[in-house]
């Protein structure tokens, strides 16, 4: 049985939300504000969506698409924004530019609807991720499986989404599998898992499936 060079420490997280006092009352303002807000805010409304989305909520893919669908009532725009997969972009600025381009293109073809009242405007936010060590560690693949199966859902987000995009104390699962446990193939399978338009519980299920296969093959 392989033993890792260093143990993985599972951590969960709480997303402390900060409102930026930046608002958009129509599609044109949404475009200008997306271009201006801090990158953390673009992150919150796209990648951060995966932490807040759960099986009961309707999948819109990101907060911008949800707002376009529910408040603006522009289904075409909502669909175009929803299909943006944030994981497809190497940097947050590239994701931001793509969102602005979609809105710009849409506005060239469609007239802007009326301005919304303040309570229905898009309110830009960012978040501060507070990491929570869960007191669970893993030095072997079997221990990793046991931890993965029981940790809080936010740990799946932290170790798979957050650590993929932003530097955190918590270690990304694929990084640990590759560098700690010496299992690059399994790390690659973890990296290919697509959290877009699914739930964190489903992501957990897929990751557990990969680990189980590796354990059955005697690779752990």
């Amino acid at each position, binding site marked *: 049985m392989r033993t890792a060079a260093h143990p993985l420490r599972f951590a*969960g997280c*709480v*997303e*402390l*939300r*900060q*409102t930026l*006092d930046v*608002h958009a009352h129509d599609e044109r303002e949404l475009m200008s504000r997306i271009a201006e807000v801090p990158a953390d805010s673009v992150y919150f409304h796209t990648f951060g969506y995966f932490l807040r989305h*759960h099986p*009961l*909520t*309707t999948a819109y893919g990101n907060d911008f698409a949800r707002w376009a669908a529910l408040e603006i009532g522009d289904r075409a725009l909502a669909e175009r924004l929803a299909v943006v997969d944030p994981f497809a972009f190497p940097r947050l600025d590239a994701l931001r530019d793509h969102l602005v381009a979609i809105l710009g293109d849409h506005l060239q073809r469609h007239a802007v609807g009326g301005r919304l009242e*303040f*309570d229905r*405007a898009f*309110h830009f*936010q960012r978040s*501060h991720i*507070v990491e*929570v*060590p*869960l*007191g669970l560690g893993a030095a072997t693949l079997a221990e990793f499986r046991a931890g993965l199966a*029981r*940790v*809080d859902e*936010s740990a799946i987000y932290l170790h798979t989404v957050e650590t993929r995009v932003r530097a955190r104390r918590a270690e990304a699962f694929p990084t640990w599998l590759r560098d700690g446990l010496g299992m690059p193939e399994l790390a690659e399978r973890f990296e290919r898992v697509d959290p877009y338009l699914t739930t964190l519980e489903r992501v957990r299920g897929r990751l557990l499936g990969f680990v189980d296969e590796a354990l059955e093959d005697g690779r752990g």
Partner: protein
Amino acid sequence: MSRIDDYRRVAGPGAVDFVLRLAEQVQGRRVLHVTGGRLGSGAAETLRATVPILAELGIDTRWETTGGDAGYYATARALQAALEGAERGPSEEGLARWADMNRLNGKKLDLGADLISVHDSQPASLVSARNDGRWVWRCHVDCSGARADTWTSFRQFADQFDAAVFPLTGFESRLDIPMFVVPPSIDPFAERNRDLTPREITEILGGLGVARDKPLLVQIGPFARAHDPLGVVDAYRLVKQHHDVRLALAGTADDGPEQLELLTRLREIARDDPDVVVLELPAEAHRQINALQRAATIVLQKSLRAWFDLGPAEAMWKGKPVVGGYTGGLAQQIIPNVTGYTVHSIEGAAFRIRHLLNNPELIPRMGAAGREHVRRSFLITRQLADELALAIHLLR
């Protein structure tokens, strides 16, 4: 008084352990909450549950209140109303006396703590006496439509805090300090939400004079235009053309002329229609409200302006579908087509009620989804996690 381990029975798997882990990062710190009183407000209700739990978690937590003379309370009420958008604000002289009185409060109270949370407007000017620690202004209402002149006066105090916290994004007005968002929550063990036996429910409803021989529509909320009880009656009348239902409207009424006129009109309606029950209840009638929500077939919250009224969360926790207005925190609580419906009109409310009554299998399905939604997003364990995360962030 509930202990943290009690919540293992009702919170999601691992939620309590998660709170315990978070608390480890705040243990040994001193936290002080200051409110304008210990009764009545949503903030006070939440603190009654959370302060003992935080102390149990090893965090030195205290709760103080400010007080003063009749003029102090009158100005504090006018200030709070003006922050919520009332037409009339407190006078300059009144605000000066209010600030003087809070200076006296500041001398009497022990304000020594690492984190000082000052709730709502009454005690807010205590921040002028700040010494050590990080100070947070906790605003529990929608300030986005505050009277401009009142906000300008109030802001000289608000900007002295290190941060402000609002229940919902969009409830803020302009400030120069970081503004965080922590939605409120319900305590499943509070008298308003704890489990009741069928016998208890029957007894309480009997005492209220609400028969249970037909489907029951319930709206809980103050008898005020913002909660549109007359609109609810109109929606009920549209439904009544097709379904034999009963409507119970229960809530409090203050002695303002508009509220009294509204209550009088509702009582006239109830006199003419035996299937409309109007119940003016005292603010502490939590057990009665609990029973009404549990006896309801469908819970309505057709408010036109609702701040962050937790009525939908309370009803969903009791397994009820909710038909609510699309406003403030209601739209945050109700997941359309999953836990109930958000509506924009009387006709919309009637349509959704009829839809549920015509498809009764949806009622328990939505009720179960609602309970799970509340378990995940609106239970006190989630708020404890948010509060601890806020403390960790500010005390770093």
